[in-house]
């Protein structure tokens, strides 16, 4: 597949007798990211790009970027893209997919974007069964604005706007988007995965593939929640962030497929 963004430098091209065994996907722009060290956005991008290539969807793909740390996600995807307002990615994606029914459309949104300001747009696009795929990065904080409380923040978790730790009464409990989405008739695939270990990353790729496949096969809305690390705003090392996902997040946000209409 042709990738206009990743021309391999002459010196790195395979010579006589050599063959290229590993390369960036055609859907990816192979360049250093602006994300913090240990951030999981980069892993999530790579998985999405691989899935787009494997499903032969890169040429038809349109990315709807959100507002958050991943606002510039389009810098790393070699696909047509547009910017949505904070929270409105699923509504914008609805407009793209309806106007251009042959395209493969996906949103990439943080937890503030999708579960707070954009909850209405996200839930209603899902309920209408829009043929789009939504990728939801749950890192329990607003990353870009400096680690404030998000709808997914754990009870007791200290953030810059919950200095005493999040309290259920008055601040609410962690919103479980996968379960919410799975309960909607228009959703064809919903799964929660984590990016803290190789095993979980592999499962995440499978889930992403399924969430795109339901769109391509016209079955309905595809949704994948990815439990992701934000070492910067969690104030820990990347290794400790991975442990936090395993020990504190997964017990509150159980992993697994909540809905799958692919085999029906």
């Amino acid at each position: 597949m042709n990738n206009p963004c990743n021309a391999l430098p002459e010196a790195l091209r395979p010579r006589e007798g050599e063959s290229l065994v590993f390369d960036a996907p055609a859907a990816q722009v192979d360049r250093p990211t602006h994300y913090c060290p240990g951030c999981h956005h980069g892993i999530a991008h790579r998985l999405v790009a691989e899935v787009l290539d494997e499903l032969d969807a890169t040429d038809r793909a349109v990315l709807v970027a959100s507002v958050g740390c991943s606002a510039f996600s389009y810098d790393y995807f070699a696909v047509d893209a547009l910017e949505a307002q904070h929270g409105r990615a699923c509504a914008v994606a609805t407009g793209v997919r309806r106007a251009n029914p042959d395209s493969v459309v996906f949103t990439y949104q943080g937890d503030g974007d999708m579960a707070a300001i954009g909850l209405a747009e996200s839930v209603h696009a899902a309920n209408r069964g829009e043929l789009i795929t939504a990728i939801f990065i749950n890192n329990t904080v607003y990353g870009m604005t400096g680690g404030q409380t998000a709808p997914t923040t754990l009870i007791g978790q200290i953030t810059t706007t919950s200095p005493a730790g999040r309290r259920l009464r008055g601040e609410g409990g962690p919103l479980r988007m996968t379960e919410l989405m799975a309960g909607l008739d228009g959703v064809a695939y919903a799964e929660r995965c984590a990016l803290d270990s190789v095993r979980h990353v592999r499962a995440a790729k499978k889930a992403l593939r399924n969430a795109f496949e339901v769109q391509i096969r016209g079955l309905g809305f595809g949704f994948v929640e990815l439990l992701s690390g934000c070492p910067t705003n969690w104030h820990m090392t990347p290794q400790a962030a991975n442990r936090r996902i395993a020990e504190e997040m997964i017990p509150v946000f159980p992993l697994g497929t909540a809905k799958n209409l692919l085999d029906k």
Partner: protein
Amino acid sequence: MSDAPERILIKGNEAVAFGAVDAGCRCYFGYPITPQNEIPEAMSRLLPEIGGCYVQAESEVGAASMLLGACASGVPSMTSSSGCGISLMQEALSYMTGSMLPAVLVNMARGGPGLGDIGPSQGDYFQAVKGGGHGDHRNIVLAPATAQECYDFMFRAFALAFTYANPVMVLGDAVVGQIKEPVRRTPPPDALAPERLAELAAPWRVEGRGRRGPGAAPRLVKSVYLAEGTLAARNRQLRDKYEAMRAEARWIAQDTDDADLVVVAYGSIARAVRSAIRALRAQGAAVGLFRPITLYPFPDEGLRALAAARPGRRFLVVEQNLGQMVEDVRLALFGPAGRGAEVLFHGLMPGLLADAQTLEEPVRLALAGKEIRS
């Protein structure tokens, strides 16, 4: 039988829907609100029949965001609303201006502020003309007065939106939207063919890069420019575009040659004023009408020419609000004698139908330089 095309008896709102569809509109996104419900109702029937798409959104925020997505895909698309619904669309409106997208929005204005009422009002002039969105935002505003103009102006709205890659608002009111009148369903002379609209969008629309051939570079539609100097460059580009739009200013002047007083009014109010002027002229009063067709760009050249043609001539602005367009008229006519002119104001309250007879009195008084309040 005459050769003139058949006329159909429809409401202004239905004329908007027919005009949009005939102009090439293929996507409509909206949320119900009085007094414009006939637009989504007509669109929900018309668009599926021709392979277009109609979506009833979860809110006006959702509708305007869907519009952004469809416009970025280069497909002629629109939404419509009124009052508080337009307020909810302002976020997307600003993003669409920043992203240079050809959106068409129709505002069949109702009374405000707040929930106000569902009757006619011109209280949204400032919002439409000055305050459409945050940032250095501008959008073209067209003001139809009749059902026929509702039909015709939809063609102009799409033509301007695609020519300038900028949102266009059609600003009517409850009377313009609800009045039932004969309409000729034939494209006006300034219409652009749908194929031409597609050509104008071809260089920037997002569509999946493979459609442009193997190895085509990806495209990006956005309004964010964080790196130093980049927003400055973008806004210079917008400034040049806004300046170019000034060539689109349109107005109609009637009975102004001999007029000592020119009444400035737009939309449905201009129709009532027109009748009042006819009655007064029959009594020998030298009064004329200046009707802006575009509220942005405001036709200040046309007004200045009238002031210069007859020094000492007065102007009376009649609006169904507490005084909004009058500021633009004063700005246009500000200046020393020979270039400026005296500007009077008469405001009508919202929710009431303006009738020609009650407008005769304020116009007669203005001839003598006096104002009265309604």
